[in-house]
């Protein structure tokens, strides 16, 4: 079977672990668990023509106290970049993380996900945020780990992108 290592990148508390849980086990938990370093999960994803075993490395969300351990990104085939729509700063963080990732391990396929779309009315974002990302040539999706919206889609798109690139 074909296996691919995928990392979850994003600022602290944007919902990376919740997205993984939603994708892997299809259960959402409100209890937030601070990820310590990294947590690894696995999911068999069915793309158009083949099955791929996705090994998901859920990296610790970078904050003031702990930096992302870039060595975890080594060997990954791609990553999911996550930001929180209710916190404007997480988008900037995502942009800088993507920049840093390119520096660390070179260009990798990735998908950007604006999470917590179930709270869209409360989003605190500049109106042109999507245009800004489009200018960077990013693939952008909206998702909600709580409702499940866009989660499967995000991982599948990433898988396709990885398979297309390899």
């Amino acid at each position, binding site marked *: *079977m*074909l*296996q*691919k*290592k995928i990392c979850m990148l994003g600022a602290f508390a944007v919902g990376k672990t919740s997205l993984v849980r939603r994708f892997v086990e299809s259960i959402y938990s409100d209890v937030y668990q601070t990820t310590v*370093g*990294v947590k*690894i*999960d*696995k999911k068999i994803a069915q793309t158009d023509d083949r099955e*791929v*075993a996705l*090994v998901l*490395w859920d990296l610790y969300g970078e904050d003031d106290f702990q930096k992302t*351990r870039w*060595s*975890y990104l*080594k*060997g*990954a*085939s791609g990553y999911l970049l996550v930001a929180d729509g209710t916190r404007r700063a997480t988008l900037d963080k995502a942009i800088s993380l993507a920049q840093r990732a390119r520096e660390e391990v070179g260009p990798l396929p990735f998908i950007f996900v604006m999470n917590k779309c179930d709270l869209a009315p409360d989003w605190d974002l500049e109106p042109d945020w999507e245009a800004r990302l489009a200018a960077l040539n990013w693939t952008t999706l909206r998702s909600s780990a709580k409702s499940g919206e866009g989660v499967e889609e995000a991982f599948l798109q990433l898988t396709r992108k990885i398979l297309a690139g*390899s």
Partner: protein
Amino acid sequence: MRQLIIGPEREALRRLRERVANPSLRTEDVSEVVAESIHRRREQSGDEALSAALSPTIETALRESVRKDPGTLADALFPVMGPAIRRSILETLRSFLESFNQVLDQSLSWQGLKWRVEALRTGRSFTEVALLHSLVFRVEQVFLIHKRTGLPIGQVVAPAVAMQDPSLVSGMLSAIQDFVRDSFHAEQGQGINRLQVGELEVWIEDGPYAILAAVIRGVPPRILRERMAECLEDIHREFSERLERFDGDTAPFAAVPHVLSCCLDAKFKEEPRRPRYAYAWVTGGLLFCLLGGFLGWREWQFHRWNQLASTLRAQPGFVLTSFGRGNGRFTFYGLRDPLAADPLGFVQAAQLNPARAEFHWAAYYALDDAIVQQRAASILAPPPGVTLTVKEGVLRLAGTPTAKWMSDLRARALLVPGIRGVEIPLEISPERLSFSETRDAVQNTVVKFPLASATLSVSEHNSLRELSAELKSLLESAPALHTKVRVEVVGHSDTTGAEAANQNLSQRRADRVASELIRLGIPAGALHPKGVSSAEPVRPEDSDANRQFNRSATFHISVAPGL
């Protein structure tokens, strides 16, 4: 001109067109190159595309073949199926037997019981508990992890071990390796080579492209580390190029688990020697011998008493109805003739303890010849010199019995229980005996006469009357005894006087007695009187008293067989 220049080309083009348009010609063309082109295609771009293209057709063809005649495919697969099925069955049986043996071994001991309780207490399976206790070490899982991606390339797992997801274990192990390296700024190639998690140890062997990780329960030996290193080197030697190019596809690494399996090692505790078992064996053996000896002795005793019972059964005068053992005594029930031998005598003869014998006899009349003979002897009381024998119930006599005893013997003998007949030899028949006695009596009779006289006195008259009765019985019984009797009446005289006168006197004395007997009813033909004067004296003439005996008449009875 044009025709000249392009004529041949046109002609060639026409032929080509025709060829392309004609399917049968095209088929022919393709058939020439189809094998070659498949071969080329495979060389150029590997098997995958070609296989993918061909597989639906092959699948359909197989399905069609099975639908038409399953036999063809079955025949083709037969040599493969047999061994495969056998191997699978053998494998299943072998693992079943192994676990069955172990369970039997362990469930019947005290230790097994303890483990069972522990299994109940901890909620683990009995097999697991038994394994953990008898294990020195066991390599439970071996992973080959691609170093760069942290993805598993291959893994092997020991039988009956719950397998962790290799992706997760591999991921976590490489994450931990990375974490530690980052945290301690370790050089590449340095890192954790041993982790301890409760009862489990993880040994990690680091290589250029891949990491070998073994999950071990218990205390592994040092040599395992070397074996792991060798294994990892083998893998790098064989797969280095593929490891370098690894992109998540494990298909080219199908042979890896086979290489890894050399690290799946285990060692179990040896059963400690238990010397108390030796004592148990010796004690058990002794007890067994004692018990065997006792039982053997008992059986021997019983055998001897049983032989005694057989002896008694064979004895005349005994009927043994039951024989048994109880409370250390041997009991005999049956019938015994009072004349039979004393059973205690047999007990002593067999050298058995008479105190252990218990006889319960009911009296009866035995009809065995020996007993009947004894009985006859005790009832009939034969005189000395007479023997009685009994054969098949018939009494036989031997010896010289008296006529008196013999007189009603036959009747008396038939009253003795067990006597069915009496056989008396002719010479001692009561008739003959009384005949002889009478004859003797007659021959001993001396009829005395006065001196020089042939006149009978009154007393001699009387004695002649008695004698005549005896003579009569002799004469009468003679025919029954098949004899002829001749009675000579012999007249005697003493030596005094002239011989001629004595001859005359003796003749007259004989005639006188004969005539008197004839008068008393004796047939004259039976009597032969003769005078012998003093030629045959009855007694020697040495006294007057004896001389008197010679003035007499006597009788001589000769018996000859006749009739």
